[in-house]
């Protein structure tokens, strides 16, 4: 098929399939402003006073967020320290002389020391 013939066919097609908008469509499109809310646009302020009003609440928010972050960060590190202390209650103690290994907490160790002390007294 040559180019001219193809162009003729395309023209015919364009004319045939060019529907006019129905009344219902026009009405529904024209009703959009009454039913749909517009998005608010974002524009940077142009005047110096506007910049002040634009920046103050944002900088305040940013500062508050930073302060809160620092506070939470320090609270988090103390919590970690407490965990580490708790682990120390379960250290392994070795009684070197008797070669006895104890994997108990500090209270148990004290009990054992007391027992040894009483035993020495008896002797």
């Amino acid at each position, binding site marked *: *098929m040559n*180019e001219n013939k193809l162009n003729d066919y395309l023209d015919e097609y364009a*004319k*045939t*399939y060019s*529907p006019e908008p129905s009344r219902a469509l026009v009405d529904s*499109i024209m009703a959009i402003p009454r039913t749909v809310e*517009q998005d608010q646009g974002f524009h940077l302020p142009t005047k110096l006073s506007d910049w002040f009003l634009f920046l103050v609440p944002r900088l305040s928010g940013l500062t508050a967020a930073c302060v809160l972050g620092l506070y939470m960060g320090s609270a988090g590190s103390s919590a970690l320290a407490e965990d580490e202390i708790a682990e120390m209650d379960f250290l392994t103690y070795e009684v070197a002389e008797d070669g006895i290994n104890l994997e108990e907490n500090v209270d148990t160790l004290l009990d054992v020391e007391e027992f040894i002390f009483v035993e020495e007294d008896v002797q």
Partner: protein
Amino acid sequence: MGTDAITDEDLMLRIGEGDQTAYGMLVDRHLSLNLGYATKLLGNSAEGEEVMQEAFIRVWKHAAKWDPARKTKFTTWFYRVVTNLCYDVCRKRKPQENVEILENIPSSDTGAENIIAVDQRSAQIKKVLELLPQRQSTAIMLCYFQGLSNKEAAEVMEVSLNALESYLVRGRRKLAEILGAERDQLLKEIG
């Protein structure tokens, strides 16, 4: 000052301020042409109407965000919106779904004897356009039916000018091949 002197971009700025008259003017200018585009791209007038409704909702909603500093032409932006909405509709279609052939659309051809032949040829073109890859048929729609320049069509499709021209050449070649083959087949059957 006549209404024609007001550009689409000015109307968008006014719409952004809530001006419903400006919105009405923009609808008058672009509804018919873009409805034809969406209908041809989708091959279905009901879906074309749905797309136009959604497109104008976007115009109204986003007009306040229209930034004249970007120097985007309204027609380019609007064609892009309509094209993307049409692509969305195509993606949502089930694979086996057959799109109804457009019917009851008044033909502007006045020659009564010729109407049937023209309608048949147009239905054939429609069928062949649907066989083309989406980008190729979009390029043909924009350049031949909507009268956009190659540069404008490339901007709408967000491709380079070379890519657009490639789509056009390949699309037209494929159209001519399929239509030529079908014509030969018909002539053989008659002969």
